[in-house]
């Protein structure tokens, strides 16, 4: 997957004057997905602790960096990225993936209802269990969410490679980003498509998350299926050239 953002266009024009990016530009290639910011723009620093550190405590490099930021232009922060203590990038990414048609309000409310549902179910189990089991029951919806997604991440993936006129499913290593994306995608598609039409998303999602947390359920099964396919097609591994 070399340079995914750059598309081959014959005879690139001079359009790229005002719109530049930090990605390497090859001759004959034009940017397809670009940002409106030019390369000297820095990313915003949202962390509250970074800004609250007193001047005396900073090291030389940090002082230099602060002085540098005063002269450089900074991109605008996204409205969804807050400096709240309760913010979680994984939850934000999951909410964005659940969003349909730009309806962030609905996606966020579904996410919060899911977390609440997970919490209430765990509390019910907690109160019904004996005191030895109570120590093992996890009630924090955030740890359950993170652990469930970690359990759904595949270790190895498959890529279709064209050789001799046929497509072969070749086992291929996946980057961290791709693994996290696949786990979340599988979770959401499982809930949307394979469940009964009338069940609500928080109910479906909370059930799936709890099952994935215990390494059971359909999403973990899909991950195992992917691993088995990769194991079965081991012989084709040398088709990969990267």
């Amino acid at each position, binding site marked *: 997957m070399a340079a995914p953002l750059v598309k081959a266009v014959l005879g690139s024009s001079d359009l790229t004057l005002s719109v530049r990016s930090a990605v390497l530009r090859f001759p004959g290639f034009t940017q397809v997905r670009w940002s409106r910011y030019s390369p000297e723009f820095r990313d915003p620093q949202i962390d509250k602790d970074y800004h609250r550190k007193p001047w005396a405590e900073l090291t030389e490099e940090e002082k230099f960096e602060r002085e540098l930021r005063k002269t450089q232009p900074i991109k605008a922060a996204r409205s969804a990225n807050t400096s*709240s*203590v*309760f913010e979680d990038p994984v939850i934000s990414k999951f909410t964005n993936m659940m969003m349909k048609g730009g309806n962030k309000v609905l996606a966020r409310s579904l996410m*919060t*209802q899911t*977390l*609440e549902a997970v*919490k*209430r179910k765990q*509390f*019910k189990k907690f*109160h019904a269990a004996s005191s030895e089991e109570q120590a093992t029951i996890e*009630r*924090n*919806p*955030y740890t359950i969410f993170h652990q469930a997604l970690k359990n759904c991440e595949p270790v190895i993936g498959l890529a279709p490679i064209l050789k001799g006129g046929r497509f072969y499913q070749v086992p291929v290593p996946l980057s961290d980003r791709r693994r996290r994306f696949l786990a979340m995608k599988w979770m959401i598609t499982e809930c949307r498509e394979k469940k009964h039409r009338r069940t609500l998303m928080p109910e479906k999602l909370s059930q799936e998350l709890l099952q994935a947390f215990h390494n059971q359920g359909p999403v973990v099964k899909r991950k195992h299926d992917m691993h088995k396919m990769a194991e079965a097609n081991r012989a084709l591994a040398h088709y990969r050239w990267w």
Partner: protein
Amino acid sequence: MLKGVTRLVSRVHKAKHEEKHEGQHYNLPLQDMKTIFPHGLPPRYAMQMKTFNEACLMVRKPALELLHYLKNTNFAHPAVRYVLYGEKGTGKTLSLCHIIHFCAKQDWLILHIPDAHLWVKDCRDLLQSSYNKQRFDQPLEASVWLKNFKTTNERFLNQIKIQEKYVWNKRESIEKGSSLGEVVEQGITRVRNATDAVGIVLKELKRQSSLGIFHLLVAVDGVNALWGRTTLKREDKSPIAAEELALIHNLRKMVKNDWNGGAIVMTLSQTGSLFKPRKAYLPQELLGKEGFDALDPFIPILVGNYNPKEFESCIQYYLENSWLQHEKAHTEEGKKELLFLSNGNPGQLERLCAYL
């Protein structure tokens, strides 16, 4: 059992709630909740009760004020009307539940209408009333209410005797001197006569409360529904006014202060109301001219957001029950953020803490 900032663990009887207990939570036995509140608890509070396996109420100033007035009621004077008003989510319904629990423990007869708005909207079956041709009956709502009334006030139903003969139809009638329990039974079994049974119950209770056998507490949630518009229509699609519903008509007579031997506590509510703006919370705005004139004179009691002490107490309660699971929620930063996000509004705080 009182839980709160000072962590008093002694079991204090509710009658002894005073100013120094303000901000502390106290536990209500679950068995009482099932008898006194078969209906009438806010749905999120009922969920919280189910999750924690306990029912805890916070003692707050409006409820304390009302309790003080109720303790010093003069039963020879006409019934005083108290109206709890405030913005959305400040705790009007739960304060009402606190009052009801107190009066139930003092052995008053509780007449609790959980939400008057439910009687003026979404009614599937409207019958023309047999008693008065102009009015309409609502059999389902009336029978459900009678069932819950019976659960709350079992012991009074056999003691109170009706003082007039009522005829249901050609074959059935109730003699003078039979107990109120029979009227309620008739209403529950014969659903067609349920609304009339409710009317009889209200009339008899009003008449007999002045005799002094029992004290009567009329608790109505969402009283602005009685004088508002309805969304119900006749078969020819013309709208029905509130007074044409028999239940509403009888309830209006109950809320008038021409009887003695008890008190009337009411709550205004914009949440279920029809055709009222979202930001309206004052009595004049929600009741309208007609309602305000009908309820005048009344004692208004404002229910506001949490003050810092109550907020701290609420957070402590959630922490004790391990409801706040997020690690950052235990820190000072987290608490400041919760205060900012909810602005001290109890309803909003509850919704925020639900997913943290």
